[in-house]
């Protein structure tokens, strides 16, 4: 249905453009410069009007049309048969399968009638929408051609159209974000009607495995997220202890010490690190790093879990080095050479210059790089699933197994779920926590950047 409509729309938009431009040339006659706008702008003016009107018709008309088709199809059934969403969906699937000729078994008369009504309504709507679209588009072209006079400010009108298109694009992005947040908030509220927010936020135990039978032990489940937050923080801190210094120092090396040739080799290699799929890093952590740490730990007589926060944190740190180094390298490079010259001319050495002038000047960018790396670490799931385990231990011992917020979300939603159990819903509450955590990080980063921002020019 929509394919034809969009083809018609494209044709009418083009027609509008050429007719508009041609009419404008006709109005101008031989005297160039009499028109307020160039002929092409008159064409664009009409094309934009056609596009706007036909898009509005589609956006409003298509949902109405499909609603009409569905109600016609379901009208063949008894209202009681299709009262529930689940049954409606099943009936619709049957109808569509029958029309497509892939229905299994012998259809009932009722289903045949429904399919007939459904396809009749479909073709009515198909023709209706397309014909209405053509008429509307043609009407707009006709109306637009009538408006073309030498005085018409087509150029300014088109400028307004451009502005609204851009506005609409950013509107879509913002509305989508708001929609996602609202849906998470909504489901989380659902969860909080089952589990108190206090227990959730301050509870020290996490075991969401709600039992199947009410008389089983621990049937209620425990939803305290403190162990998850602690695990997330522990792994993030370990990862940043690895990635922070290594990333920053390699950025300084690349930006200030490396010759262009070395730089052109080293930088891409570092960026390859960012391209390794996290699953691969995950099994590297689980199969190589974790046993190594365990072996070392045991040789010192330490008790190391086979899955440890340290293994996950180290490998995650490797993963985010490129985020720190690549961005920091860019911001260090962006520090004006004149500042370095000023410092050298004062008799400063290279490392003094870097420490006292270049890094402070690049600080806002470096902070952003770190914040980005931290968000990556907090949001990373795969490595932790594989290397740090699922045990929600409340500990700051890097040699113990821990788990993180994202890992738990993943665990909660994998496999068959009842949608209204506290266990499943708790994933949304965790998502909400993660969202606020990242929001807070970004806010802090923004504040730091604002505080230290300096203008050069």
């Amino acid at each position: 249905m929509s394919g034809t409509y969009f083809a018609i729309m494209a044709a009418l938009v083009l027609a509008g453009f050429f007719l508009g431009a041609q009419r404008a040339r006709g109005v101008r006659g031989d005297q160039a410069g009499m028109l307020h706008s160039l002929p092409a702008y008159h064409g664009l003016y009409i094309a934009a009007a056609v596009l706007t009107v036909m898009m509005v018709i589609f956006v409003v008309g298509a949902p109405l049309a499909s609603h009409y088709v569905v109600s016609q199809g379901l009208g063949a059934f008894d209202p009681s048969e299709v009262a529930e969403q689940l049954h409606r969906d099943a009936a619709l699937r049957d109808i569509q399968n029958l029309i497509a000729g892939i229905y299994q078994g012998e259809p009932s008369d009722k289903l045949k009638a429904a399919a007939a009504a459904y396809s009749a309504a479909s073709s009515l709507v198909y023709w209706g929408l397309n014909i209405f679209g053509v008429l509307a588009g043609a009407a707009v072209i006709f109306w637009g051609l009538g408006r073309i006079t030498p005085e018409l400010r087509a150029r300014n009108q088109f400028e307004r159209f451009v502005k609204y298109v851009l506005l609409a694009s950013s509107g879509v992005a913002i509305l989508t974000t708001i929609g996602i947040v609202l849906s998470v908030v909504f489901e989380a509220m659902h969860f909080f009607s089952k589990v108190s927010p206090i227990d959730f936020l301050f509870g020290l135990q996490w075991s969401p495995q709600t039992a199947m039978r009410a008389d089983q032990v621990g049937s209620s489940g425990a939803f305290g997220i403190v162990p998850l937050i602690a695990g997330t923080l522990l792994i993030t801190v370990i990862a940043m202890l690895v990635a922070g210094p290594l990333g920053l120092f390699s950025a300084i090396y690349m930006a200030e010490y490396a010759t262009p040739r070395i730089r052109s080799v080293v930088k891409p290699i570092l960026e390859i690190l960012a391209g390794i799929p996290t699953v691969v890093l995950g099994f590297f952590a689980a199969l190589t790093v974790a046993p190594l740490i365990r072996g070392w730990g045991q040789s010192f007589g330490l008790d190391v879990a086979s899955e440890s926060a340290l293994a996950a944190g180290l490998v995650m740190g490797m993963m985010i080095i490129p985020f720190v180094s690549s961005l920091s390298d860019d911001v260090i490079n962006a520090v004006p050479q004149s500042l370095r010259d000023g410092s050298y001319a004062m008799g400063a050495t290279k490392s003094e210059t870097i420490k006292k002038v270049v890094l402070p000047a690049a600080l806002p960018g470096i902070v952003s790089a770190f914040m980005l790396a931290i968000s990556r670490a907090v949001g990373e799931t795969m490595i932790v699933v594989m290397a740090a385990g699922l045990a929600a231990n409340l500990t700051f011992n890097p040699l113990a197994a821990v788990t993180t917020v994202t890992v738990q979300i993943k665990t909660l939603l994998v496999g068959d779920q009842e949608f209204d159990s506290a266990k499943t819903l708790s994933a949304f509450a965790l998502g909400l926590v993660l969202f606020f955590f990242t929001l807070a990080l970004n806010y802090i980063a923004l504040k730091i950047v604002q505080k230290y921002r300096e203008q050069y020019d």
Partner: protein
Amino acid sequence: MDTMIKTPVADSAPRIARERPLKIKARNVDVYYGEKHAINDLSIDIPDSAVSAFIGPSGCGKSTFLRSINRMNDTIPSCRVTGNIEIDGRDIYDRTLDVVQLRARIGMVFQKPNPFPKSIYENVAYGPRIHGFARNKTDLEEIVVTSLKKAGLFEEVKDRLDHSGTSLSGGQQQRLCIARAIAVNPEVILMDEPCSALDPIATARIEELIDELRQNFCIVIVTHSMQQAARVSQLTAFFHLGNLVEVGDTDDIFTAPKDKRTQDYITGRFG
């Protein structure tokens, strides 16, 4: 370094060079950027306690030679300097010489004001801090205030020493850079077109300042403006296509240039 002197400086040395002690002596200096020969066999004597101006059309090597005096050219990988430059009789390209110490003795002011993204106070305190000039906080404060006063900036900024140096106007920024340079009490101050980014009023202030500083420092200034050279300098050197064409007392250069090229330049025929 070739220390043999091939070309002696002209016998009829400028008056100012005879009146004042010699500060910087350059002999047979050549500078190359890779293949490009930017300075060709240059020799000059620059007197102490005076302002020497380098003039000449763009790209003739004024900045290049200026940057050879504090070895800022070392920071450009492709750049190579041969010949002999002495300050107070000491070869500055000598292997045993510490570049960092050399630069501490030579202040430099750049074409575009380049205050560090730090407070006004920290900008001036930068040199004294890295060279350990101040024994304590009071010492440092004293140095900062004196330098700002010498640079004629103190009155304007005394209430906001903790504000960022980059928040000042262009002319103030340039005076801050001068204050930063004189805070380490250098012997020589090199200025590369210090007024080219400034308006006429700010330029006039800097010129006054240069005139005051002349008592205590050896100042070398590159300038695009011949009027500026005439106003502030006592010695003028005219560069053309990498050659030092003529050097003499400023009055003589502007009233009776010996070389045809100098004459053409100062009468505005090219450049």
